């Protein structure tokens, strides 16, 4: 089917990392959803929405990859930056939850923060070891 072929070609617009994780799954979901469409008009509408969705999705993912890569050139590596971001986000969530007297969320976020902080520590440790070698 032409649309399925075009879909697979357009998927190549995604960053390689995204394709590796989600590519096969996306094709599977697309094919099953395509099989559900009844009638020409419905199918055309579906095809346009899917193909346009892939183009937009790929553009968004490329922007995201580029943004994530910027700190890698001038600051910490991307995985380290992402781990730092997760810790910061959880700290902000905890503060916000406390401010709104939502102590259960605060406790949960705080617990998650400890886990994320440990992951960050391991990452930092790894980079330090790598540097010293």
């Amino acid at each position: 089917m032409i649309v399925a072929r075009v879909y697979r070609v357009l998927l190549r617009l995604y960053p390689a990392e995204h394709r590796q994780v989600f590519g096969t799954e996306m094709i599977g979901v697309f094919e099953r959803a395509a099989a559900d469409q009844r009638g020409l008009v419905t199918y055309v509408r579906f095809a346009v929405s899917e193909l346009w969705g892939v183009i937009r999705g790929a553009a968004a993912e490329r922007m995201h990859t580029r943004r994530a890569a910027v700190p890698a050139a001038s600051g910490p590596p991307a995985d380290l930056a992402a781990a730092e971001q997760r810790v910061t986000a959880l700290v902000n969530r905890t503060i916000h939850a406390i401010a709104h007297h939502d102590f259960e969320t605060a406790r949960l976020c705080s617990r998650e923060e400890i886990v994320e902080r440990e992951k960050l520590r391991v990452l930092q440790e790894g980079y330090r070891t790598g540097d010293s070698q």
Partner: protein
Amino acid sequence: MRHVAKGHDGPDTRPLSEAVLLILVSLADEPRHGYALMKDIEMLSNGRVRMSTGTLYGALRRLLEDGWIERFEQEDTSRDKQAYRLTAVGRRLLESEVERMKQLTRAASARLRTSEV
């Protein structure tokens, strides 16, 4: 966080985007794989939202990255191995969002009743 709309009171008080909210609601009762998510979201929104795979997997990637959902391999299915489920943080945040929406609808209903009188 990226999957929230712009607001004035800091990143953590802003409402969730509709796509994210629908995904979280869909995963609230049980884990789902991509196709099941797509169908459930269509049903949840009374057919109003048909999420394309591009939109769905973009949102899933962001939610995974933020630790609101997690991905795991389902053992009992041959076709759709990868499934998604809410994390404890994701569930709690969804509950907070539902509470926020309830408060807003209550306030809206009260004001509408006042304006009818």
